């Protein structure tokens, strides 16, 4: 067990303050940095989903591919409950609204909007959690492959049911929902209008990710890791397999649905097509690039992938002509081909991703630079063992996987990035 360096705690607090200050700066100048603001919002939301997926895939060793479905549940619950009552008729212009939904909304409209949004998101999360629980009862007893296929099927079915014409009065079918309040539009009275575009999602993501970090560092989290390493050994140690798998699955689905609600607020208008299997694969890409089993990796991966995909690499999709010569391949869809090849390269050659299964630590961070400087001498010993070119915390990654969960407090990790903000 490494002793916590007090200097490093200060670095963490400093980093949190820098992030907060940068966010506030962007918040005030949001009209100038429109693109950055929207990409950061999306990254924050995807970071939450990626961390929730990592809780299952990376920490419990279960494989769920239902993210799109759970996000759809959360997004639709949030959207249906938060669209202003007076706009409902306009949104459901084709077939009208189910009466009970209208009366429920009228009853809820006494609440201030931020409270209503939180309640809506929690309801979405609970519905998703309930479904996860029901799927988990038959499926989690079996090999985890069946969970992958069952959740993938579940996601497709959620999408199918949402777009079913029979439910037009409830979900507005394939027309989608519009006029969902966005992050800036629901300010409390003491804040300037439109304020909170970035701070609200930052705050929400920090809470959600922090919650998962707390779970992972608790005794439950150590049980999850034990199940990941060896189910039979974990069971022999007295861990109730079904209970812990259920817990991890329900928790992950709950958080995913809340992030789905945030996505609905980010997009302002949603339709069933937005929640196809591709979105699940996008999140898997983030988790794999960040490193299975690393929270900071997932957060980092969410930012790297979203920034690259939605901003820096946009030019892949735009035909480009230099001096009368058309650059080959650049055309709609090329960006996604590049991303899928990237995923395959990571899976095949850099299986550990950016962070492997270790977390960001200041110690590892400084080591990275130290090693860079002393590269010639160190070359011989580092080139042999590891697969990944980027190792943030060496030494931990090659250690044999422990069969017995770590002792309490044994994780020598400090929360980085987002987590630091709530310390």
């Amino acid at each position, binding site marked *: 067990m490494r002793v916590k360096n007090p200097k490093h705690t200060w670095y963490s607090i400093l980093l949190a303050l820098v992030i907060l200050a940068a966010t506030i700066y962007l918040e005030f100048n949001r009209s100038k940095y429109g693109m950055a603001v929207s990409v950061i919002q999306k990254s924050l939301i995807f970071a939450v989903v990626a961390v929730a997926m990592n809780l299952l895939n990376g920490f419990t060793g279960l494989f769920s591919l239902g993210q799109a479905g759970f996000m759809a549940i959360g997004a639709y619950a949030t959207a249906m409950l938060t669209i202003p009552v007076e706009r409902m008729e306009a949104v459901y212009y084709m077939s009208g609204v189910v009466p009970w939904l209208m009366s429920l909304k009228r009853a809820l409209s006494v609440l201030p909007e931020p409270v209503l949004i939180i309640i809506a998101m929690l309801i979405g999360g609970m519905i998703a959690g309930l479904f996860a629980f029901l799927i988990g009862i*038959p499926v989690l007893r079996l090999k985890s492959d069946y969970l992958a296929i*069952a959740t993938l099927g579940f996601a*497709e079915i959620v999408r199918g*049911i949402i*777009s079913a014409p029979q439910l037009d009065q409830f979900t507005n079918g394939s027309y989608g929902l519009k006029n969902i309040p966005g992050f800036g539009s629901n300010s409390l009275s003491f804040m300037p209008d439109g304020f909170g575009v970035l701070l609200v999602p930052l705050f929400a993501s920090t809470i959600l990710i922090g919650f998962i970090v707390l779970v992972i560092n608790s005794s439950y989290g150590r049980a999850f890791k034990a199940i990941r390493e060896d189910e*039979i050994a974990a069971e022999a140690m007295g861990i109730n397999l079904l209970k812990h798998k259920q817990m991890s699955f329900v928790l992950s689905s709950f958080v995913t649905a809340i992030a789905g609600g945030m996505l609905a607020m980010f997009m302002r208008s949603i339709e069933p097509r937005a929640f196809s299997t591709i979105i699940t694969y996008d999140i898997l890409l983030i988790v794999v690039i960040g490193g299975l089993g690393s929270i900071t990796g997932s957060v980092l991966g969410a930012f790297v992938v979203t920034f690259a995909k939605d901003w820096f690499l946009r030019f892949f999709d735009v035909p480009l002509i230099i001096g009368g010569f058309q650059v080959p391949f650049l055309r709609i869809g090329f960006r996604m081909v590049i991303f899928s*090849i990237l995923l395959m390269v990571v899976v095949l050659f850099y299986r550990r991703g950016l962070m492997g299964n270790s977390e960001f630590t200041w110690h590892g961070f400084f080591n990275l630079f130290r090693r860079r400087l002393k590269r010639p001498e160190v070359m011989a010993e580092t080139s042999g063992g590891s697969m990944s070119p980027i190792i943030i915390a060496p030494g931990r990654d090659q250690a044999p996987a422990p069969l017995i969960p770590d002792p309490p407090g044994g994780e020598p990790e400090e929360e980085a990035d987002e987590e630091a903000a709530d310390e």
Partner: protein
Amino acid sequence: MGSTYLLQQLLTGISLGGAYALIAVGYSMVYGILMLINFAHADIFMMAGYFMIFSFAAMPWPVAIVVVILGTILLGVTIEKVAYKPLRSAPRMSIMISAIGMSYLLQNLATYLFSALPQAYPAIPGLKKLIKLGDLNSSMVTFVTPIITIILVVLLMMLLKRTKIGMAMRAVSKDYDTAKLMGIKINQIISLTFVIGSALAAIGSILYFTDRMSVTPFSGTLLGLKCFVAAVLGGIGSVPGAVIGGFIIGITETTLIAMGYSTFSSAFTFLILIIILMVRPTGLLGETLTEKV
């Protein structure tokens, strides 16, 4: 709604089930040997649809069919060599992610190359001809599909039961490590599995798309899921099981559509999966396996 209508629907269901069965066999065989859900299988099927569109435009149809089958086999085997073979000793999660990555790649590649809009599937002469059989009215392909399915599956069963290579395949699926120790060339057997699976997927895609008349990059997603459920229902790893499962899923789906619940037909497939996993996780014809420490 007379008995003619019922018979007509049953015929449609059997025909759809035949196409499902051909694809389900591919899932079942790969799972039996590699313990891997080949997520890319549905997209191999989808690519076979595009292959047909292009080869049909370029050459006479009998040649086109052969080219499509060979092209699909090549695609399937290449995927195995590139994405699964290097990960043979890796944790199972990595192989599964690799399979999903391949599926993601094929879908994105198809969107890039052929656009997300549906492309018209060519009509193979003779297959779209309307046939009257008593009161039943249907196109040729509906009658032909179950017959072709049965013939192919019988051939496959004979290959598995009667030939030496079939015996090797059964041995590998029974016990991978022991089979390896007995001198069976594992990599050849796995390649052969992908050859068979892809060829069946190609034939299935010809029969399926002739009826549906258009292909999109996402045609495979839901269908692949249903076929995997069919394989689980019949008992994963078992070829006759996959065929029975395929027919059951096809017939129930058509029945539900005939009753007017078309949007919930896929939900019902999923319900079948849940029920089968609760009641009999090994499927109808599967063997019980106990995990040894």
